[in-house]
């Protein structure tokens, strides 16, 4: 399994045909660093670009993030079963916060997302985060772009507050930040502007009763004060019998319905290209392009149908010209 013969074009075709069984191979290819694999990965992403699909990929990319210990995984398990109840296929990209001190990583998140192994329409893949808490794994952006061609819902799960939802927001159509009652951090972060207002705020452990109701009220007030009255604050409980999951799925759907999806996806591809460029050429490379803001501006002027690898190539050509 040096993953031989992972053919990017063929995998793209399978994704376009919504063949969910292609998912493990797609991830194996996108995670691979070998020169041959990277060429195939470019083929794959080109094969699921809007130009090939005749529009943006149909899947809904949902980011779920929040501080450690708020119960994201059990919430996610509940969300998955609700999405399945609504007959949607779900792919989960679980980014494990474990740092790579030794190069290796323990990927334990999967254990806490209880899914039916006999259900072929649920896919869960874990990966170690990059160097930062809450950072995405290298292949996550590409995987989200690819899998959203085949799955109805693609979830990116990360840990952290602050950096993580910024990075997830670059990839996801909808970002849900999960907090637990009586954790003041998020409220403070929001007020201080350290944290962008997410698309959906979720107060988990609503079974805590009055504490939870207060958290919902406080967050709602903070969000309105910041002028983001569109952001719903949903209280959920993952403990049986569970509550609020329905409303949360509706709120996530409602966000998707009102967001300018093509604009968000274009931005996701640009940020993906930019992240890959920085990973490859560093901040020095970026300065060669005139800095981050200038590069973002330049990317925004490019053909909106270009996929991330094509944008990266454009950046690299420009860097050489400069």
């Amino acid at each position: 399994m040096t993953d031989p013969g992972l053919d990017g074009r063929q995998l793209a075709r399978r994704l376009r045909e919504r063949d969910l069984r292609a998912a493990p191979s797609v991830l194996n290819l996108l995670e691979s660093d070998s020169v041959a694999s990277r060429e195939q990965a470019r083929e794959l992403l080109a094969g699921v670009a809007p130009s090939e699909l005749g529009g943006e990929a149909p899947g809904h990319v949902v980011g779920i993030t929040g501080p450690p210990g708020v119960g994201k995984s059990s919430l996610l398990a509940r969300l998955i079963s609700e999405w399945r109840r609504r007959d949607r296929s779900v792919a989960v990209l679980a980014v494990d916060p474990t740092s790579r001190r030794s190069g290796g990583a323990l990927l334990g998140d999967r254990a806490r997302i209880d899914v039916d192994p006999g259900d072929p329409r649920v896919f869960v893949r874990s990966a170690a985060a990059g160097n930062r808490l809450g950072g995405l794994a290298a292949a996550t952006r590409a995987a989200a772009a690819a899998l959203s061609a085949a799955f109805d819902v693609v979830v990116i799960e990360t840990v952290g507050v602050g950096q993580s939802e910024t990075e997830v927001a670059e990839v996801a159509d909808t970002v849900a930040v999960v907090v637990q009652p009586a954790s003041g951090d998020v409220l403070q972060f929001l007020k201080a502007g350290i944290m962008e207002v997410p698309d959906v705020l979720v107060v988990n452990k609503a079974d805590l009763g009055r504490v939870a109701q207060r958290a919902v009220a406080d967050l709602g007030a903070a969000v309105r004060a910041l002028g983001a009255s569109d952001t719903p604050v949903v209280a959920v409980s993952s403990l049986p019998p569970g509550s609020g999951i329905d409303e949360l799925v509706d709120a996530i759907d409602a966000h998707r319905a009102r967001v300018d999806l093509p604009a968000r996806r274009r931005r996701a591809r640009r940020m993906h290209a930019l992240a890959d460029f920085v990973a490859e050429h560093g901040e020095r490379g970026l300065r060669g392009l005139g800095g981050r803001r200038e590069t973002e501006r330049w990317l925004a002027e490019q053909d909106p149908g270009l996929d991330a690898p094509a944008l990266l190539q454009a950046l690299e050509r420009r860097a050489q010209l400069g």
Partner: protein
Amino acid sequence: MRTYAGHSDAMRSNELYRRNLEKGQTGLSIAFDLPTQTGYDPDHELARGEVGKVGVSIAHKGDMRTLLDGIPLDQMNTSMTINATAAWLLALYVVIAEEHDVPQEKLQGTTQNDILKEYLSRGTYAFPPGPSMRLIADTIAYTVQHVPRWNPINISSYHLQEAGATPVQEIAYALSNAIAVLDTVRDRDRGRDPDLMGSVFGRISFFVNAGVRFVEEHAKLRAMASLWDELGRDRYGVQDEKQRRFRYGVQVNSLGLTEAQPENNAYRIALEALSVTLGRSARARAIQLPAWNEALGLPRPWDQQWSLRLQQILAYETDLLEYPDIFEGSKVMDGLVAELIEESREEMARVAELGGAVDAVDYMKAGLVESHRERWRRIESGELVVVGMNRFTSTEPSPLTADADGGILVVDPQVEAEQKAALERWRAERDPAAVGAALAELARVARNPDENIMPASIAAARAGVTTGEWAQTLREVFGEYRAPTGVGEAAAIPSEDLADLRDEVERISEVLGRRLKFLVGKPGLDGHSNGAEQIAVRARDAGMDVVYEGIRLTPSQIANSAAQEGVHVVGLSILSGSHRQLIPAVLDALAAAGVGEVPVVVGGIIPEADAEALREAGVAAVYTPKDWDLNQMMRDIVALVAERNGITATA
């Protein structure tokens, strides 16, 4: 290979008990199989290969009736090794006693009923911590009132040391556990019964471990006794000194027994037995000694007799029992005890800060994995000497092991089929309306935290409800739970120790294109996860990406994870003896999931004959306790992945 006939089903166990009673035994000790311990019926997918294996399968009151047939329950002292489902097994016992016209007040016995060590080490939990504590508190409150001669809980720190606990951790976690139980009982009673805490405190007993560092181990027991007394007096206001006495039974350490030169274990066991008998003021009330060859497989009757003789020599030949406490006034012992007490207090304070033992499960689990890792590191580096294993390893051929057959528990596979068929008949013949009503009532009581679960459980037992139905009803109310694995928090090994191994992992990963990814899986109900955890942590330290999902996975869950995660190799760990059923089932599931080519390695207590059969079935390598060098195992696994992917080995 021998057949372990005794414990498979209720009828065979009953025959065994009656034979033993005829020989003058006055008590029963009931071991249950893993499905009964974790609340699954024999026909549940997870029960596969486990029915009747490590104990008797009790699926309903009919099984309990057969098990206790002809046994005078008014005279019996019955000890049940049961935890997550203790309330249920106690309910079944009460109902059968009722049929024998023996009132509950007359029943004597013990339910182990200690859930925290199940999360931390032994793995046979069924429900999340909060509801589990409630079940424990309910059985305590119920027995104190209605079954006054019953010992409702036996707090077991034994399993913590097996999981790697240091003496301080063993003391601190066992006592924190006791505090969690006692607080729950107190809070649920809300001061209605002023004498409650005294009678409950007096009924709590402990089950501890004794390792080969026997001076320190003795000090540990003195420290526990002293802290326990203080706890009763200061925290729970127990006035009666007798009620505050630290009562404990002991099983000496299995962790330190070696597969290499196993005859040395006989000495280790003797020294360990001293640690719990030397000083009268902290002497065990009951001692169980393992057999010298436990690390090899199932002990023969002669091996067990050899262990029994050790106890008899200690008791009848030596002068051990003739003196008052021989450490009284010993500066060294007092100093050691004081040190352990101080450190244990600090650790207990840390657990308390995290909200008590229930909320600190993750913390304690991580602490145990870390201690175990450190212990293993010291053995590998030679800092910790284990004679015959990492030092003084040359040996003359042993006449003792020459004809040892290394047998393991083998249950007639018929038992599982018979139990399933019998269960089907049971379900068909009972009154479905009564069962439905009893389960509805059980669910109602479970949802109401102010009610005691016991009466509804007893009514359900009477109505013919099965073990799986009782547990499933509670799972639906309480939720499912996966205990923390503790591996994520384990500190990394200093890189210089592993430099070569890491280089090789990097090299192979580069050729593979992505990082070498290793799935460590524990199929079935066996909850002994210490080995799997250490493998997972070491593989991470060696630079691999490791997917470890904890215990209790079905073959299809493991195969599904292997396929979705795109792993390069799968490692399976089984210690319950069900490898013959479960490993081939995982291989089939991997093939069905389209990843049949991924190599599989297996670790566990596996006799050579079985290992050969597993290799023939397609397992790439089999590891047993003699393969204690984890780095060598890692090198093998890396080489295996390289070979399967056509990568040439380094020169």
